């Protein structure tokens, strides 16, 4: 099959005539022209970069809330004596005694942290930024299937974030990111501005849902319809598989949170009563509604993270991913099972029958995740491993995700969960999965594709320092929380008993290390943009299309010629990467006569 020519490749929908060979980052004219060009772009790469900037900004906001939470928990101030020992203690917002309402501020902080991190950072993080940038490049397409919808999704994201920030400005929301009824429908009395800030926050989550649906829908169609000639389903890079699995969940689960939040707004404004016990409604029904979305969405968070890890491990060990099909199918299996395990968030509130069924299904979902980890580790076998920053992040991911996954086991176990539910153990568990896995993978991915996205190399030395700070800081912050939770520390507490003091202090100190680590990365990125050396098209020796067939940074229409796929994404044993310097990579062993890698 040869290339397909279109009468107007290079103009038409992409904003008039311009040179074929100009990088997508090349400014279109004066400053205002350039800004307008970005604001009205339908180029998936620019949208990906805009998403990246927006997400990192929200990550900063959410991170500041997290630092405030940890600061508040540095010490309990209330001293209580029972029978000679200190028992329950009090609260202090560490900013000083002028803030008289310690608890209220604390509650708002952790709510903002949760809502921002979930709805505005982790859900869109990898798919909307890296996914947007890379999906068409990896598939050999000129763009995603619906470029205008893609731009719309970014604006919708910004609109949603504005509502969230408005809620913060109005004084913040104290419902927890889960908006459990009837608390979320009763808090903040009617008749003043405070009454509306929760509506604003719920509306923000509702709007962000649309952004998520648009992205997911776009990606599903792109993967189905826009693969380059010669690229079958099992010739796709595993990154695409991961994004595809997440996109399916986004399409099928997000509408349910849409209707849930809509009903919640009705509930709050008009008391329609569906979730209101006083009207005969059922608050546990809300939890079912909520978790029908919010559990699958956990896999929207982790699958793209896993997707990144596939690419990084393959590239930096110069190996085919061990058991490609098993990894691909486990992605789909996770996506499918994720829809029927939400009840494990409700072991303490739902009926026994449902709890038992949900517990059983929950253990099922552990299998595909375990298979993935085994396959990644097996991929390292007989590889040629280069410990670059992205690879360190990938190995860090394996370390942290294994902990995160294993600590899911006691939470899925019925009897043990009755003890651990809503404790710090849960907090630690999902931070290991969401931050320790998704965010770590995200940062690793940013480093891996940084030269491709911006055409400049970053400083490897400082990036590695950043990695070690993040990795150590993360473990110091969150590992003590496992012990804390199992010993009896409830989550969302502004104060605690003295036996938890030492854990909290270690944890808070860890959060500062983490912060410093992120600042180092910020420095590395800015330094690279300003003074990084120019990147070759394929600095890491990848075999996927974005490395072999696109420039760094890619040109406006991604490829000079539509790429034709004639080898698998990880056939390092047979193919030498195009555009890469042979000196940098160990050559494969000579091919025995007649042998094939399959």
């Amino acid at each position, binding site marked *: 099959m*040869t290339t397909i020519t*279109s009468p107007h490749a290079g103009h038409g929908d992409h904003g008039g005539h311009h040179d074929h060979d100009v990088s997508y980052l090349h400014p279109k004219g004066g400053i205002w022209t350039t800004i307008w060009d970005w604001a009205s772009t339908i180029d998936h790469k620019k949208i990906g970069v805009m998403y990246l900037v927006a997400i990192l900004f929200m990550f900063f906001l959410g991170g500041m809330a997290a630092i405030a939470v940890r600061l508040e928990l540095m010490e309990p101030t209330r001293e209580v004596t029972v029978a000679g020992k200190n028992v329950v203690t009090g609260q202090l917002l560490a900013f000083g005694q002028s803030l008289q309402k310690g608890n209220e501020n604390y509650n708002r902080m952790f709510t903002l942290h949760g809502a921002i991190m979930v709805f505005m950072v982790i859900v869109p993080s990898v798919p909307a930024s890296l996914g947007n940038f890379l999906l068409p490049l990896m598939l050999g397409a000129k*763009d995603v*299937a619906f470029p205008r919808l893609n731009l719309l999704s970014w604006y919708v994201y910004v609109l949603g974030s504005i509502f969230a920030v408005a809620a913060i400005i109005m004084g913040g929301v104290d419902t927890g990111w889960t908006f459990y009824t009837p608390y979320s429908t009763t808090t903040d009395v009617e008749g003043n501005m405070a009454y509306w800030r929760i509506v604003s926050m719920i509306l923000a989550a509702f709007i962000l849902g649309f952004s998520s649906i648009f992205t997911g829908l776009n990606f599903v169609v792109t993967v189905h319809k826009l693969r380059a000639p010669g690229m079958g389903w099992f010739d796709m890079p595993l990154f695409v598989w991961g994004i595809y699995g997440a996109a399916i969940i986004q399409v099928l689960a997000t*509408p349910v949170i849409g209707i849930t939040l809509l009903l919640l707004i009705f509930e709050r404004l008009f008391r329609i009563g569906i979730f209101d016990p006083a009207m005969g409604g059922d608050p546990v029904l809300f939890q079912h509604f909520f978790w029908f979305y919010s559990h699958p969405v956990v896999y929207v968070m982790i699958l793209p993270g896993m997707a990144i890890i596939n690419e990084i491990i393959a590239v930096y060990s110069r190996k085919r991913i061990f058991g490609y099909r098993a990894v691909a199918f486990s992605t789909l299996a996770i996506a499918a099972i994720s829809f029927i395990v939400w009840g494990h968030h409700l072991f303490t509130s739902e009926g026994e029958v449902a709890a038992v069924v949900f517990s059983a299904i929950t253990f099922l979902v552990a299998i595909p995740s375990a298979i993935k980890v085994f396959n990644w580790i097996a991929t390292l076998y007989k590889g040629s491993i280069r410990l670059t920053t992205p690879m360190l992040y990938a190995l860090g991911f394996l370390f942290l995700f294994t902990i995160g996954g294993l600590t899911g086991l006691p939470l899925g176990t019925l009897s043990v969960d009755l003890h651990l539910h809503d404790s710090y153990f849960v907090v630690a568990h999902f931070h290991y999965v969401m931050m320790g896995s998704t965010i770590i993978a995200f940062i690793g991915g940013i480093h891996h594709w940084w030269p491709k996205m911006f055409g400049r190399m970053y400083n490897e030395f400082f990036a590695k320092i950043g990695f070690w700070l993040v990795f150590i800081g993360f473990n110091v912050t969150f590992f003590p929380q496992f012990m804390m939770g199992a010993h009896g520390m409830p989550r969302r507490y502004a104060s605690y008993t003295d036996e938890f003091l030492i854990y909290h202090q270690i944890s808070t100190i860890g959060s500062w290390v983490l912060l410093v680590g992120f600042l180092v990365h910020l420095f590395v990125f800015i330094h690279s943009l300003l003074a990084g050396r120019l990147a070759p098209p394929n600095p890491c020796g990848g075999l996927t299309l974005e490395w072999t067939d696109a420039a760094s940074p890619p040109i406006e229409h991604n490829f000079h010629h539509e790429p034709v796929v004639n080898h698998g994404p990880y056939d390092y044993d047979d193919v030498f990467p195009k555009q890469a310097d042979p000196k940098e990579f160990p050559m494969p062993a000579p091919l025995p006569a007649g042998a094939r890698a399959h």
Partner: protein
Amino acid sequence: MSTLHADHAPSGGTYADRYVAAAHFRDRDHEFESVKMGVWLFLSTEILLFAGMFVGYAILRMLHPEAFIAGSGKLSTFWGLLNTVVLLISSWTVAMAVRSAQLGKQGALQFHLIVTNLCATAFVVIKLVFEYYPKWQEGKLPGKWFSYPYAVDPSEPLWWGIYFGSTAIHATHVIIGMGLLTWLLIRARKGHFGPHHYTAVEGVGLYWHIVDMVWIFLFPLLYLIH
């Protein structure tokens, strides 16, 4: 295989004949197929949006069967039936509109779009004038507006919450559909659609059918089950 057949923009003909697919698609067929799949995915999100209402209905009905029986008895089956008929007919006209576009019959296309829009208007008018308005006057309203003194079950406001919630969300979809149909009509008058380019007609048609389909379920659930 030699070069595939590409979209050669013909010089003459109508807008629809001259239409070329967006640059990242191979040709018009490729674009049509992709858009159609996108629309189907969107429709599945619509179904899952209404799924929330259906699940809420099912659970609350189990908890308060009497409130639901009492509430359901206060709806007028006649108007519900009429609305179902109106909507089914409009679904047929939309299907016919797609057919007209496929065959290039511009007049029939416009006619069917207009009839569909009239049906949609009729649906909304019936809903507002003969269903919502009398209930509003009697105080059979959801939640805090409920002021109907003859409730036989304390959870009756809940029923009205479900009734008004699901029908209002559905009616919103009908109204959005009316906007889309009008947009189609304007484009059809400009001759934008023809046998080789009717993607928008097909997409809006599918959307309209899903709106119809949701009503096919809402009608028995709200009006008939007692």
